[in-house]
């Protein structure tokens, strides 16, 4: 039975714990990328040119280098410049978490920036003329509307992030693809092992897609 192999290896390295690690990795790095990405977006629409340059530099760097290279750098190269991302046991997970958050923050930043720009200029002028400061306008007028309009693209980024988290297997994070590789090497049943990995990703991503659609409909109605 396809997927049956998932339940045949009840030891700590395999599918159930791999799935749990994938979930932890995805949720934490998604949160990180949302916070950091929003910050980047605010920098990118800032009236101060140097802040805009910093934001643009960040986006161009992280969007235009492969995530795999970033992960290898964080995992293998950081100790050479004196940075230790945790104990030997937690290093790989932390490096993957940081790498996924930094990379996807660039995409989140672009999406949120688009949303901020999309808020009608008249509203901003109205807010400022009512005496709201720049930051207050951002906080109470622009961002709330932005978050509503960016839900669908952010959902796509979240789904991409879950799938990209499989790259963490290459630096030794025992997530779900890693579990598949171990099972494959022990059983030589590549079809079942990787088929199961694909199914487990679908179990995570399809409900996410449904959730995003539902949120989108609700927010459109509220508007």
């Amino acid at each position, binding site marked *: 039975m396809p997927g049956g192999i998932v339940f045949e290896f009840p030891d700590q390295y395999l599918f159930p714990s791999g799935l749990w690690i994938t979930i932890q990795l995805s949720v934490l790095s998604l949160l990180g990328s949302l916070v950091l990405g929003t910050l980047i977006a605010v920098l990118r629409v800032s009236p101060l040119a140097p802040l805009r340059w910093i934001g643009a530099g960040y986006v161009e760097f992280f969007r235009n280098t492969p995530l795999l290279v970033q992960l290898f750098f964080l995992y*293998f190269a950081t*100790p050479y410049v004196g940075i230790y991302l945790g104990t*030997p*046991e937690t*290093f*790989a997970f932390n490096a993957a978490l940081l790498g996924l958050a930094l990379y996807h923050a660039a995409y989140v930043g672009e999406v949120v920036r688009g949303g901020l720009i999309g808020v009608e200029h008249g509203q901003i002028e109205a807010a400022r003329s009512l005496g709201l400061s720049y930051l207050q306008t951002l906080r109470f007028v622009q961002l709330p509307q932005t978050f509503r309009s960016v839900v669908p693209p952010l959902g796509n980024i979240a789904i991409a992030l879950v799938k990209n988290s499989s790259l963490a297997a*290459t630096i*030794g994070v025992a997530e779900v693809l*890693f579990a598949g*590789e*171990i099972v*494959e*090497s*022990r059983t*030589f049943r*590549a079809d079942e092992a990787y088929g199961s990995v694909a199914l487990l990703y679908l179990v995570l991503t399809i409900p996410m897609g449904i959730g995003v659609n539902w949120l989108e409909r609700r927010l459109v109605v509220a508007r």
Partner: protein
Amino acid sequence: MRSHWVRLGAIALAALFVAAACGGAGTGGTTAAPSASAAAKPKFELSSFMYAIQTKGKLRLGTRDDNVPFGLKNPATGKFEGFDVDIARELAKGIFGANVNPDDVIEYVSVVSATRIPTLKDNRADLVIATFTINGDRKKQIDFSDVYFKTGQKIMVKKDNTSIKEVADLNGKNVCSGKGSTSETNIRAKAPQANLNLQDTYPPCLILLQQGRVDAISTDETILFGLVKQDPNTKIVGAYFSEEPYGIGFAKGKVGFAEWMNAELKKMVDDGRWAKIYKQWITPVSGDEKKNPEGK
């Protein structure tokens, strides 16, 4: 006009036959220099896999490209070299003739531990010579030749490490090994409390050891030899805690391949070619000399 062309064609055809006959005569044993390479081409049964390879004109070899001293793609020359590669070159000569330059007929396919069996099953290589331990599980998937090299698993640590002396000491320590290798399985069995850090190849393990992020690397001694050579600040400790007989892997159903290959390996041992290859690649790192895989 037409008959003119027919006559010309006939003459050309005749010339071709004569040339072929001369080539054939070479096999008879005369020492006609120009056709020597054709003369030395071994003959195989039409149904055999060796005949298929000979006809195809290419031997596709799966080997590692980063595993000193067995299989290495030399970064300076771009050429493959090492113990496994030289064994493959001797086999290539056995199929295509002793006068053929083996590198003209071998097509190199890089493999890592976990891709060795898929490479054979998906027909991306004719054989895999890549420090490939023969074991029962693998024999269900592919076929192996006789043992062409024997080693065992040991532990490598930094020179100043005094806490790890044998496999039991790995419990509670961070240990690097190959993802999907027999080494990984052996550590899980002999030191179940070890924290395994699994990499696709061994050079990353050495980086992690140098950075102090793993306490030890454990795999076949011969692979450790190569790593110690790259970093003199390390050492190999303890006794063998597994036996690793290496075989040449190939897909099931290759007619006559196993018998032929085993005979070739025996010839290499008997005429001293095996000992020569051992001396060239293994002696510099191990310090010993052997005449055959058993070391007797």
